[in-house]
Each structure stands twice: as C-alpha cells, then as structure tokens.
C-alpha cells in the first residue's frame, strides 16, 4: 500500500458513477495527484471538491501507479465560497486549475509551485490586488517547469536598473536604453516583475499578462499542441472592463 497525507489544493473533480468522484489535487510533495472520493458526488462532500478549495487530505493506493482513493478530505479554509461574488477571481481559479492540469505531469513534486498557488488563492480571497500576484504566479510557473525568465539584469549591459523590455526569444531582460533600438520587437517588462517593491502603474498588469502569455504559449502549451485555456482570455477581458489592468 502507498499512502500520503498532507495539504492539497483541489484542481478538478469528475463524477464517477452515481455517488463518487475522481478528484485531482495539487500537493507540495506529490505534485498533481488524482484519487477517488467515495461519496464525492453527494452534497456533503461536493463543496470540498470545488477548484481552489484548500484541503487536508489522506490518499492511499494499492500500488504506486494505481489511481488510489482519498481516505479523508477536510477543508482547511473557506475555498471557492469566498470568491463567489468576484467574477474575475472565479475565472482566475478556473484558469489556474486548467493550466496546472494541462502542464504539470502527475506525481512530480513542486513544493514552490504549491506554495505560490496558496499565496495566489489567499490573494484572490483578500481583495482586488491579486492580478499582479497572478502575473507573478505565471512567471513562477514558467520557472518551475524549466522556462525561467531572466528578469533581474539586462542581458546586453548587465545593469540591474531601468529594466524595461524582455526578448521574446531568450526570455531575458533588457534595459530601457539598450532595448530602445529594438523596442518594436521586444516585450514590455512591467516594473513590478523586476522589482517586487515597484508601484503598479496603469497598463502594467496588461503588459505582464502579454509577457507571460507569450512564454506560456510558446514553451508550455505549444509542445502539448494546445492553446492557453480560454478562461485566461475571458479573465483579461473582465479585468479590462473593471479597469483593473
């Protein structure tokens, strides 16, 4: 028997038969993990299985590569219920769950990504400042999956100041002066990605989403022959309408 116990974040749940569900969660030490939840289709457990729910879980399988089942799942926070009144936050949860399910292999540890996803969920529940956290989370997702961006110094001059562009080919930053001659071919780097303490200006979130979309699409989705989840486009439209970009 193989077993695991620890914190988890619900990604998706599919009904299995009349009463049960197959739940996929993100865990720190087993990455994306799936298992059967007996009674998971019933009203008592269904709320726990909503995407974004924070859980304490115990999982068991007869063999390492078997589906397994969750012996115990308990809520460790208010989960999706806290977001039901924020349309963009709901869309963000759907997008995050979809992209994690698309790009993460099963049962590969990603403790940093788990921690970052927890921070993002806390930010989603906390208030309207979360779009910047989501952009940073996407940069972290790229790094965790092997496509880290070099945003700390200019690839041309080595300076760490006035970073304003990113090369769409190398993913490395360029300073405003060094990048100026190639500006039309470079992606704009919003200051908050190079310096966490930098204040947010209008257009920074949109620039951040454009930057991460390029690398997510090219490095994570293209090899899978998939597009970024449609929920991401919807999210950007919602944020734009609400003037949160």
């Amino acid at each position, binding site marked *: 028997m193989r077993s695991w116990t620890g914190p988890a974040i619900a*990604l*998706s749940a599919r009904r299995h*038969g*009349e009463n049960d569900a197959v739940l996929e969660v993100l865990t720190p030490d087993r990455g994306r993990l799936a298992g059967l939840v007996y009674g998971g289709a019933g009203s008592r457990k*269904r*709320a*726990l299985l*909503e*995407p*974004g729910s924070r859980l304490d879980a115990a999982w068991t399988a007869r063999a390492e590569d078997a589906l397994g089942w969750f012996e115990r799942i308990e*809520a460790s*926070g*208010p*989960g*999706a*219920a*806290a*977001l*039901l*009144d924020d*349309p963009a936050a*709901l*869309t963000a*949860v*759907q*997008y995050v*769950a*979809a992209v994690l*399910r698309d790009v993460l292999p099963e049962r590969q540890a990603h403790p940093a990504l788990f921690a970052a996803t927890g921070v993002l969920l806390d930010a989603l529940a906390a208030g309207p400042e979360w779009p910047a956290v989501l952009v940073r989370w996407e940069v972290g997702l790229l790094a965790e999956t092997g496509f880290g961006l070099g945003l700390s110094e200019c690839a041309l001059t080595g300076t760490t100041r006035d970073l304003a562009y990113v090369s769409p080919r190398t993913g490395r930053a360029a300073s405003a002066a060094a990048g100026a001659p190639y500006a039309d071919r470079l992606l704009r780097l919003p200051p908050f990605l190079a310096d966490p303490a930098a204040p947010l200006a209008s257009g920074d979130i949109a620039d951040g989403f454009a930057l991460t979309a390029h690398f997510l699409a090219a490095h994570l989705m293209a090899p899978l022959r998939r597009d970024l*989840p*449609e*929920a991401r486009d*919807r999210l950007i439209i*919602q944020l734009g*309408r609400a003037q949160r970009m």
Partner: protein
Amino acid sequence: MRRARTSAGPELERLVELLGKLPGLGPRSARRAALHLLKKRDALMRPLGEATLAAADKVKTCSVCGNLDVTDPCGICTDTVRDGAVLCVVAEIGDLWALERSGAFAGRYHVLGGLLNALDGIRPDDLRIGALVSRVQAGGVTEVVLALSATVEGQTTAHYIADLLADLDVTVTRLAQGVPVGGELDHLDDGTLLTALRSRRAM
C-alpha cells in the same frame, strides 16, 4: 476442458452493452437489468421498448428555451398563463424539471445546456448564451433569474451572463445562497456558512 459459455447470444450481449452505457449502470448492473427485463417481457420489456421508440420519434428540443417536449415551442413557452416577463436561466433540463417540481416559479425558462468550464474547454459559444441575449433583446422580458449552481463553474457562468445583460433594460437576479431548509449550522461547511452570512437579510 470444456469452455465456459459466457454469452446467451449477440442480442443479449448488445442489450447489456447498451444498458451499461446508461448513467449509473456498469456491466454488472446492466446484466442484472437485462435479466430483469427478460423475466418481465410483456409487463416491462416490450412497453419499455415501445416507450423508448415513441420518445425518440416524438420528443424534440424546444427552439425557444431548450426544454424537451413533443411540441416546438414547448408547453411551457406556449402556456399563456405563465409570466413571460420573467425568464429563469438554468444549466440543464434536469434543473428546469427540479424547479417545475417545486411549483415555485411561474415564469418561463432558458436552458443553457451546460456551464462554462475551463477544464473541459466549454466556452461561451458552446452554450445557448447568444440565444438568451437575443430573447432578452427581442423585448418583453423584465427580469432574468440566474438559477445556476453555487459552484465555481455555475457562478462564473452567472457573472458572464450578468455582464452581457448589463446594458439591456432588464433586472438580473440570482438564487439566494446559504442555509438549506432543514440544515443545522453545526453540520454546514465553512463556505456555506460564509455565503449565508453574506446574504443575511433583515427580519
């Protein structure tokens, strides 16, 4: 060694195979159901076959609301006693039937045919959202009730529709969320308690 006979013929195998595709039935329960039907050929099996054929031939999807009925538009859409000014949006026909069973709603319906779902790739174009907007734009509707589930998918869809209808001359409402009838606070999950507190009202 004699080979065990596992089949009673292709007809029965086909019946078991088809029954096994019904929701809630697996191969074992499908075999039990097939045996039960064969035991009650005249009382159950033949009437079931006739009823299935008749339903397949006569039941249509209502072109106005997406409900199922033998007429198009359906009985609910053509019922003149119902209040055509109030439109209740539901995800599936099962939800429409649940509301009808309650007898609490006397308006008309609009069935979306699902909910927005990023994981399954269900986009707005896959649902009957455009038809809903057209119905409201056509006039005569003063209130749209979004009777969608209190899930991430349900509420994402509700907010999306509310956004689309925001510029039209119509009141958009949604079902209340909170303590179910017969529910004891001690047994409710944190999320339900949170939404119940948020939706509290004066007595």
